[in-house]
């Protein structure tokens, strides 16, 4: 209705048609929204239901919410406190973030700002690893870590993060660094700054958005990672959240403590959801640019 909006020219049509179109737009969007958010809302409601109602009751939120499912979590499972799982996940995810930020930004700086022999070849190799299925490396890496007696430690999960094997983040940072104004580092060079100085004092601070995006994606990926812990960790005290949750299920798939399983699912999702709410701009922009420049 605002006559002055410089919006994209709309096809000619009466006001009524326009309004009907806008109504259809909102109905369509809300419909998709309902389907998309249903599982998330469901798990919140279900975690306050008694186990027997979780599947059978279609009510999203119980009339008489109970806290037993969460109280039960405090007892842990099989003599392991669930805080242990959370600590382990934090160690893994935190360690991964530090590793990715250091190793990928160093590598990206070399690709974006240093002209060295063989750069294009190495860049092509790096892009190639983006498409490489991880499973080809799975078995030899396991064999290697097994020979080095590093099974049941976090080294196999973290080493790659400190050696910049996550090409996606290198790529993201390279794209960002290439778009930084060239004058800045040229001026710094004339003032006699070396690469380390330029990297640390000029490029890194300017790359904050790319670093934040990489950090959050890394954290979430590590938090959600299932295959890595499944293969490398074999002692419940070392389990991460995603692996620890598997202990809540029974061999027939219907958990004895179904309420506990659902409550645990919700608690495990919370850090990711909170990160998302706080940083969704960075995540979505990072995602969008990756596609445009790919």
């Amino acid at each position, binding site marked *: 209705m605002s006559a002055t909006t410089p919006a994209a020219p709309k096809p000619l049509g009466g006001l009524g048609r326009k309004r009907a179109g806008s109504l259809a737009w909102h109905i369509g969007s809300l419909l*998709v929204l309902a389907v998309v958010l249903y*599982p998330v809302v469901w798990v919140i409601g279900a975690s306050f239901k008694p186990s027997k109602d979780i599947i059978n009751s279609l009510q999203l939120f119980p009339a008489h919410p109970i806290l037993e499912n969460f109280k039960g979590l405090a007892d842990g499972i099989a003599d392991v406190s669930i805080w242990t799982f959370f600590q382990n996940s934090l160690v893994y995810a935190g360690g991964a973030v530090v590793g990715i930020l250091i190793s990928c930004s160093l590598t990206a700086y070399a690709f974006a700002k240093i002209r060295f022999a063989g750069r294009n070849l190495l860049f092509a190799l790096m892009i190639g690893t983006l498409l490489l299925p991880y499973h080809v490396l799975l078995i030899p890496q396991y064999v290697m870590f097994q020979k080095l007696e590093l099974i049941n430690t976090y080294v196999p999960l973290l080493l790659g993060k400190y050696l910049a094997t996550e090409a996606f983040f290198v790529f993201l940072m390279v794209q960002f660094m*290439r778009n930084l104004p060239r004058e800045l580092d040229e001026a710094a060079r004339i003032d006699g700054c070396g690469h380390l100085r330029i990297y640390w004092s000029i490029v890194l601070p300017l790359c904050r958005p790319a670093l934040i995006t990489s950090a959050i994606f890394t954290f979430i990926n590590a938090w959600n990672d299932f295959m890595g812990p499944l293969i490398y960790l074999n002692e419940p005290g070392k389990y991460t959240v995603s692996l620890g949750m598997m202990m809540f299920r029974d061999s027939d798939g219907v958990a004895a403590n179904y309420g506990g399983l659902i409550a645990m699912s919700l608690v495990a999702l919370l850090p990711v959801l909170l990160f998302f709410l706080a940083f969704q701009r960075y995540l979505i922009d990072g995602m969008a640019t990756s596609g445009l420049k790919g």
Partner: protein
Amino acid sequence: MTLVKESPPVTRKARSGAPAVKRRGRRENLAGYLFMSPWIAGFLLLTAGPMVASLYFAFTDYNLFNTPKWVGLDNFTKMFDDPRWQKSVEVTAKYVIIGTPLKLLLALGVALLLAQSRRGQAFYRAAFYAPSLIGASVSVAFVWRSLFSDHAIVDRTMSVFGFHVGGWVGNPDWILYCLVALTVWQFGAPMVIFLAGLKQVPKELYEAAELDGAGAFRKFWSITLPMISPVLFFNVLLETIHSFQIFGSAYVVSNTYCGPADATLVYTCYLYQQGFKNAQMGFASAMAWMLLLAVALVTAVLFWSQKKWVHYENATEDAR
């Protein structure tokens, strides 16, 4: 007919000027390789080395504790004759062929919907993207198991439309579609990329087309689709490769059995079983290489086909 006046707002880089760097060349090389050293170490130790090792294991009998024994093509012939391997190929192919197009169609459809209005766009975009972040988690896999059980919401909703399945999770004919639904639910990531692509289509093109009397479908087919074809290509490539490698959700939704009746025995599940449950490292390596070949083949076909349908506006502007 139509003239593209505006160049896309992607920052164009000045041609990296090469001042008198000859003397500095060696120092630059040293600095470059020093900065690159973590990546180079990682590439040799965790990528290139393992690839060579994996290729070797593929031709051996190896259970992690014996010395690998060369068996030639045995693993491959065994694999092709193995009904469970055939089943895993079938299951994975079905999952990729049904799931990926559905997911991308939904992503494109919703992106087109959202692109029509600025109001509320940011909110919807964020909300639709959220499942892509949590979809791979064990939590969501458990939630999925619950939502698709007997008497749960999905079954009851479908029953209203006279479509009674019962529990999808225990039903070998249906459980795979439960996984397909899980991947389609995560349409937000490709949608965000489509939206970014749609934003870059110059408005003048539509204006010109409207003057020529083009309808909505014609505009979509002749302007939108060609203009976003690079983004479409990127999404098709990444989503396809990605869904070949599904593991966690299949493993958890099927309660670690990849069943019932091997109905969710996706390729990586079988690889995991052979390698880590049965200690058939040689066989599993052979499987991994077949996966690599399949992914490489699909990638090659997509890149080859790209000449026919992907339209690059500034094809010559390649900085590297």
